[in-house]
């Protein structure tokens, strides 16, 4: 398998699989709550319906409102392509390391947040205000977690992280702490319970949904697909760092195929775990976010400090 082909596969497959993952999470949650739940393929049907429908724009919506869903989706898509999902080779590093991935997600957040303010409704303002708050709280925790990981593997590039951790660095407390921090950041950034509820219908508790209330038709479809891709992205990110086994290191078809199967398995496990977690916990008040994300920051700082101490003792 050649590298360009592999790149295309790495771009297309995550975007194609993302709705399935969301469908799985919804299905498992429904089963846990004693409902039958919609089919696994329901997200695809929803997207197809949205794409077909005529988009309605508010009278004073600007070009930014129309363009933001595409820009945000492209930023997440590009970030996704830089994560070693089922195959990893040096040429596919793309020159985008973990800081750049965090930055691209930041770009997506900025575009969505701006779009939330474009029409000038109060709900859009609520969503934007809360979204930038979550971002400001989550980013330091993410960055310190990156420091802790980079200290272990001596690089911020994900293919390197994945490779070094695959070769084994032993069991480390810092890794567990960094995992905790990244998982908490991921839950905040993907808008899951306890920070945000993707299934909420009460506007006052919305964060992400409030920002995109004015969207319809294909614009809404892009927003929804972007949110699904973001969930896939964070699960893949966690998988490629903390469960780095089975990623194809060389571009031969068999390794790629088994890597693909394993990656889908990892996503499924992550999705089920997320569904179980979400059904056992309640959503938080907005002003308790700092506690949740402060804990993430504390985890990552502790992770970094423990590493210093272990280096110091060596």
């Amino acid at each position: 398998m050649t590298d360009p082909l592999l790149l295309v596969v790495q771009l297309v497959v995550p975007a194609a699989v993302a709705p399935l993952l969301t469908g799985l999470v919804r299905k498992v949650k429904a089963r846990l709550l004693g409902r039958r739940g919609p089919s696994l393929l329901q997200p695809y049907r929803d997207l197809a319906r949205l794409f077909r429908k005529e988009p309605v724009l508010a009278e004073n919506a600007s070009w930014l409102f129309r363009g933001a869903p595409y820009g945000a989706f492209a930023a997440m898509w590009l970030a996704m392509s830089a994560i070693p999902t089922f195959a990893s080779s040096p040429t596919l590093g793309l020159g985008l390391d973990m800081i750049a991935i965090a930055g691209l997600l930041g770009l997506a957040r900025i575009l969505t947040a701006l779009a939330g303010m474009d029409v000038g409704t109060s709900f859009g303002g609520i969503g934007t205000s809360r979204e930038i708050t979550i971002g400001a709280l989550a980013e330091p925790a993410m960055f310190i977690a990156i420091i802790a990981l980079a200290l272990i593997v001596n690089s911020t590039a994900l293919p390197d992280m994945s490779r070094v951790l695959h070769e084994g660095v032993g069991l480390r407390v810092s890794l567990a702490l960094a995992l905790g921090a990244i998982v908490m950041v991921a839950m905040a950034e993907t808008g899951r319970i306890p920070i945000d509820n993707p299934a909420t219908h009460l506007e006052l508790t919305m964060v992400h949904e409030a920002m995109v209330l004015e969207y319809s038709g294909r614009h809404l479809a892009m927003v929804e697909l972007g949110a699904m891709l973001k969930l896939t992205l964070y699960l893949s990110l966690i998988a490629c760092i903390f469960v780095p086994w089975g990623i194809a290191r060389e571009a031969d078809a068999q390794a790629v195929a088994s890597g693909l199967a394993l990656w889908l398995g990892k996503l499924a496990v992550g999705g089920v775990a997320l569904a179980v977690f979400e059904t056992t916990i309640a959503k938080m008040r907005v002003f308790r976010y700092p506690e949740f994300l402060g804990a993430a920051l504390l985890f990552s700082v502790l992770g970094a400090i423990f590493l210093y101490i272990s280096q110091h003792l060596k």
Partner: protein
Amino acid sequence: MSGVDQWTLIGVAQATFVGLAVAGCLTNRRRVLVTPLYALAALASLVMLIAALGALFASDAVVVSKRLLPVGLPDIKSHLRLDGLAAVFLVIVNIAAIAAALYGVGYDAHTPEPARVLAPFPLFLAGMNIVPLADDAFTFLVGWEFMSLASWLMVLAGHDREENRRAALVYLTMAAFGALALLMAFGALAGAGGGYSFDAMRAMTPSPGIATLAALALLLGAGSKAGLAPLHVWLPLAHPAAPSHVSALMSGAMTKVAIYALMRGLLELAGPPQWWWGGLLAVIGALTAALGALQSLTQTDTKTVLAFSTIENIGVIAAALGLAIAFRASGQPLEAGLALVAALFHALNHGLFKSLLFFGAGAVLHSTGTRELDRLGGLIHRLRWTAPLVLVGCIAISAVPPLNGFASEWLVFQSILDATSLQHWELKFTTPLIGALVALAAALAAASFVRFFGIAFLGRPRDAAAAQAHEVSPAMLAAMAGLAALCLAFGAWPGVPLEPLARVAAAAADPSGATTLLFVGGGDGHTAWLAVAPRGNLTAAYSGMMAALGLAALTGIAVGLASLVSGARARRGPAWDCGFPDPNPATQYTASSVGQPLRRIFGSVVLAARDRVDMPPAGDQQPATLTSTIRDPAWHFLFDPLIAAINRATERVNALQFLAIRVYLSLMFAALIGLLIIVAVAR
């Protein structure tokens, strides 16, 4: 280009500035002069830019070219020197100056008294050019004072408003304090022999005590001009008070000249740097960054938001510079070079996007007549060209790919990661703190600029002035477009500006010249265009071009696919707003309400932010009121007590004015005796 040519260019440009200042005094009577004078100022700055670029790209080695002018103090004369570091800052200053002069053509076309700006404006530019060129303390301080006083005059341009007069007073006081501190630093470094030329200071190795004294004085003097906390208090008052193109220069260029003074002083003049200078500077820088970003989020005046964001960026630059000094002191020239490149690149980038944003705020002020965010809104429909240009600035300053702000912050983060290899454990354990603060600052800055753009340009107009805003003149748009284009270009091809910066940093971080390793692409010319690779290989790389082209391509694919499957044209309808749209624009979120959660979370601790709701008793028809207060910790803990103490002391001393003549005579006699005793004891 040979040395002679550069000095000719510099001489011509500086002479033009002086001539322009004289001509500028006449513009109140002859308004036709305004446009040609700004055009000439732009031209002179362009000449300076060419001279500086010539020095920067002259050859692979960093050229040092010197001139001795027969003016100045009799036994010192005036030494000038053009080396890599000076050239970098001349480039930063003059790019902003060209844009500001161009912008001034449109901005100052209708002011009642243009001479108030046009007379000091060329002197301000001249001062900012002299400081990097100076090679002795005297010339340096002359340039420095020109810069301070000329900008002070322009802060006073709107002297009919009380807050501008207060801003100017605070600014003048801090500028005087800063100059005094610099004077002390140079005095300490010159020593008893009076070697005031920088060459003499370089040749001498001061004792550790003297060096520390000089370093701290430099930190106070240059740090107060740059806006490092807690000496930043003048900046958010003075920068917004000046006309917008001057605000842009003060934020984009003048603070960089102060950073230059820190670099030149701490890395070259004060002898071998000690690691804790760097540690101190890095911690102060990180705290400044977080404090500035947080405060910019609480302001509702467009230009004050930008001024606080300048404080944030200066903090980031200072943090990187501090790390560079710490690395240099602990004998890690490679890492020191990387951190210095990060500081230089961020200084360059901030000069671009902050000037752009101040121009944008000026355009909003020009077309709506207000700086109050809560009276704006919906300008994206009225200022069709300004809006996308300001958006470029907002995304660049938010440090997200693919723009230049991310490229330099990426380098800063890489330096912070490198700081884990420092030997001093105190600094090592501080590194996560510095990293967290810088990351927090970046995230808060992003939030602040979402708020800035969202309130001013998006939504519905909150005021008639915003609803009837008109697009600004082509000269102003051209200035903004030029800077936005540079932001985009430096974001997509960071390797281009980084190549000369890396050379300069290698020379400055390692004077022996052993560090010839390029930080870009491992010395391979092909990858220099593609990626920034600080560790000399491509394992930790950021490719601006991949980010820019990738985003463009993927956006194109997404738009193409979406319109392919959908096909239906968008229809316009009333806003949904959950079924209850309210036509009153006051139902929108305001600048204060967007920032409220973050103000409450962080501000309640740092800024003592309090929201008080006064609810009238049941049955009372009075409206409820919400009072929201914040305070700057620097004012509360440092300056207010200081001012109170000075006032008390002056009242005491005031009594000395009303004594009888015999008391004065006896006081003088006592002073004489006292001095004689001191002389006797000292002998």
